[in-house]
């Protein structure tokens, strides 16, 4: 038998709540939907296997946005995220997260996920700076996925692994009607009718190309190709602030997180080639990334993670946390190069670009219940627009969306949809399998991503963006008319190439729309170098209108946690360099 041979087949199932994506937000959404309405039929669909899928497949080394009573308040957190995001936030959603996340930490703790505790059994929250304290290490964070999976099995949820959702079905009345998926090993189709759908499909992490040239050496789990962004777009949902890219400081070449926030409380910091600190900004933000980028470009680059001033015992402690959890090959990587934290600083670099609200603010537009602009359609986690929500945000907002989606599903019937949509989608998906000759998906993908690096990587130059759009259109022509696959696995990669190209187009379109600079490096436009609050203190919403990409402005909702004028300036002032 040929490996992953293509089989012809289609079946249909129906459920109350369909959760797409079994990483972090998805399992929590499915669990909460089931708990909210035990009679509801809940399906959890996953492109890989729920056991080890998503951004935290190998675990997580800690929480960096834990709002724990006694250490930080929800209002304080909301304020900080508002400032870090240059004011463009839906505060209601941020505040709701902050108010609910402690409950979720306690729940995760009850699942057997171990957070760092002192000898009184209280959470050992670590201080990062004087403004707020949000870091809670997870010394056994490699067990996160296992503990989640256990809960799913106990609840006897319907889990469907190795099915990649390709398109949403929308009802004739504008509501969501379900989704179409294809098996990644057999190419058989599954049509899932659903009363409500929650998208938890992660970041668009395979957008830019890592400088190592290894296509899967991305910062995000390389399975997160932006399928959710593309699906939401084609269904007509609005996507917010896509021009606010994700760019992260990473260990050079390894492309894994430097985890300064884990090592930070132990005294480690980011330094230039003189071993001196240079970051002025208080927050993990585009502004911080700009300072990082500027230092890299200057004569004081490269940039390093510095630990060699710490005591041997402290370094040992950091190594145990960093080398075991989240990206455990990190220890192996350093070993291969003979790097020792005790002796030398660790070279860092910035990542390829992507969409990810988990770290920045680019996501499918949602309100404080995770509702998108399509009735019955929800989004949570890295792909939903609640800014800087990280892993704990995925859990918390997944829970919020799961409960609301269960309630919604209990009060509606299935939306009726055009039967022809399934046949059309089947034809679109299988097109590359019908060709005898053509371009393999990995070449289409490589070219797309190389163009993203060449033309879309900030600083953003209008002329380069326009050239990029022209070149990406040429790739689209190849993708639609000449891409060819030989088996089901390659078909999955071909479908991901579609998502990646869609995301590249959206990144370019959204960036050109906002004619100002904002969020530091994330949206630094050389032709419009200044922040322009008068015209652009707003969200931008991108959506598909009459088959074409369109952008519009959306006002920022009135703040529920007021930010005084001088507080906004406070951080700008702090960035002023020393006179000496």
């Amino acid at each position, binding site marked *: 038998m040929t490996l992953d041979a293509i089989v012809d*087949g289609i079946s249909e199932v129906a459920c109350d709540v369909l959760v797409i994506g079994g990483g972090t937000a998805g399992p929590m959404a499915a669990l909460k939907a089931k708990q909210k309405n035990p009679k509801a039929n809940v399906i959890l669909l996953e492109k890989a296997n729920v056991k080890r899928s998503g951004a935290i497949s190998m675990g997580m080394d800690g929480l960096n946005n834990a709002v724990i009573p006694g250490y930080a308040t929800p209002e304080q957190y909301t304020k900080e995220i508002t400032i870090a995001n240059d004011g463009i936030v839906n505060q209601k959603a941020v505040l709701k997260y902050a108010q609910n996340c402690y409950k979720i930490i306690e729940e995760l703790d009850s699942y057997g996920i171990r957070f760092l505790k*002192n*000898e*009184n059994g209280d959470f050992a929250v670590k201080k990062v700076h004087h403004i707020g304290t949000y870091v809670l290490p997870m010394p056994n964070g490699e067990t996160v996925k296992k*503990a989640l999976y256990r809960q*799913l099995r106990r609840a006897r949820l319907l889990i469907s692994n190795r099915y990649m959702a390709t398109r949403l079905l929308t009802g004739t009345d504008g509501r969501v009607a379900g989704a179409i998926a294809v*098996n990644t090993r057999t190419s058989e189709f599954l049509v899932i009718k659903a009363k409500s759908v929650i998208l938890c499909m992660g970041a668009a992490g395979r957008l830019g190309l890592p400088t190592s040239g290894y296509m899967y050496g991305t910062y995000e789990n390389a399975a997160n190709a932006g399928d959710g962004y593309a699906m939401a777009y084609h269904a007509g949902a609005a996507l917010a602030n896509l021009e606010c890219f994700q760019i992260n400081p990473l260990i050079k070449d390894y492309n894994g997180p430097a985890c300064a926030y884990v090592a930070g409380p132990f*005294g480690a910091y980011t330094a230039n080639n003189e071993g001196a600190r240079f*970051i002025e900004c208080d927050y993990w933000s585009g502004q911080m990334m700009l300072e990082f980028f500027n230092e890299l470009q200057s004569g004081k680059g490269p940039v390093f993670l510095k630990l060699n001033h710490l005591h041997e015992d402290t370094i040992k402690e950091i190594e145990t946390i960093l080398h075991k959890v989240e990206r455990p090959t990190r220890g192996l990587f350093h070993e291969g190069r003979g790097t020792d934290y005790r002796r030398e600083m660790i070279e860092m670099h910035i990542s390829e670009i992507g969409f990810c609200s988990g770290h920045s603010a680019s996501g499918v537009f949602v309100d404080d219940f995770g509702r998108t602009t399509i009735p019955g359609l929800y989004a949570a986690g890295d792909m939903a627009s609640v800014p800087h929500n990280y892993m704990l945000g995925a859990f918390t907002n997944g829970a919020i969306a799961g409960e609301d989606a269960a309630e919604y599903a209990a009060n509606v019937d299935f939306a009726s949809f055009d039967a022809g949509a399934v046949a059309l989608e089947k034809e679109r998906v299988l097109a590359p399998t019908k060709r005898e000759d053509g371009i393999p998906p990995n070449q289409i993908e490589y070219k797309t991503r190389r163009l993203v690096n060449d033309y879309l990587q900030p600083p953003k130059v209008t002329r380069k963006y326009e050239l990029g759009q022209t070149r990406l259109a040429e790739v689209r022509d190849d993708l639609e008319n000449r891409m060819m696959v030989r088996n089901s696995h390659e078909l999955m990669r071909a479908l991901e190439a579609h998502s990646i190209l869609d995301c590249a187009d959206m990144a370019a379109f959204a960036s050109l729309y906002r004619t100002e600079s904002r969020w530091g490096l994330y949206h630094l436009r050389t032709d419009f170098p200044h922040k322009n609050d008068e015209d652009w203190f707003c969200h931008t919403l991108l959506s598909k209108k009459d088959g074409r990409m369109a952008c519009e402005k959306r006002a920022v909702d009135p703040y529920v946690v007021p930010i005084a004028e001088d507080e906004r300036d406070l951080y700008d002032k702090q960035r002023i360099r020393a006179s*000496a």
Partner: protein
Amino acid sequence: MSDPFESYSDLDDLAEQLASDDAGERRVAVMELADLGDPQAIPLLARAMADKDAGVRLQVARALESYDGPAAAAVLVTALTDPDKEVASAASESAAELKDPASADPLFPLVEHTSPFVRASALRALKELRRKESLKPALQALRDSDPQVRVQAVGVVGFLKLEEAVPALKSAAADPDPLVRRAAISALTFSHTQTATETIAKGLADSDWMVREIAAETLGSAHGEGAAAQLLATLSDPFWQVRLKTIRSLGKLKHKPAIKGISEALGHAQANLRKEAAAALGEIGDPSAKPALEAVADDPDPDVRKNIRWALQQIAIKAAASA
């Protein structure tokens, strides 16, 4: 077309597979029992724990992390005492994930087991279960010959947060092993009795720098003016790490007599320490710190400069409020 959903294996089928002559097949059956998530799998796991193949038993010890409650804990007890080291250490990890207080019952007898590894593992698991019945055996274990056992025993006592255990923790804070002393000081965080504060303060003069560090840190959490006065001594500790925690605690306690000592750290070579000193002076917010802060406003480190600016702001805000 095959069923699109993950299956929940049949217990009878797995029982049959567990009787296979092939150890590999038995091992695969145990893995499926782990994924089942159904407590009915536990009796089968118990049977598999008697397997002659250590690989199968190792798989059982790992599978048990998926289960909780006294029945699962009873199988873990067997696994913890397995002659194979790998099996026992996997069981120790699984036992640390138990959350159901009832799981403690089968574990209690292990606290007196002949192997120190078993004793320490049992105590480690008992910590999270927070059963009052654990106190007595844990207090006894504080006198164990093995330091790892004593460290875990301190945790069991500390997690219970009982004032009656403070004297025992005080003795543990004088343990010959520094790891036990560290744990004991951390375990005293909850108590604000004079004995607790005095014991922690005594840790400031410990021979081990990490004990001094945790003592300095712990005193910052609501141990009052008395504690603050004690902290002045570690402002000149030979380890900058200890001084850093000392300064942070003095800032938290807003201890004005420390201003002069803290100000001296503003000139230290270690930027981490300078930054902490500036922040602490801001938290205290007394105008007498102003000249020292202003003198170093041009510190080469941006984080230090930021904290100096913040501190000066705090001082100004407080001055305006009291005016």
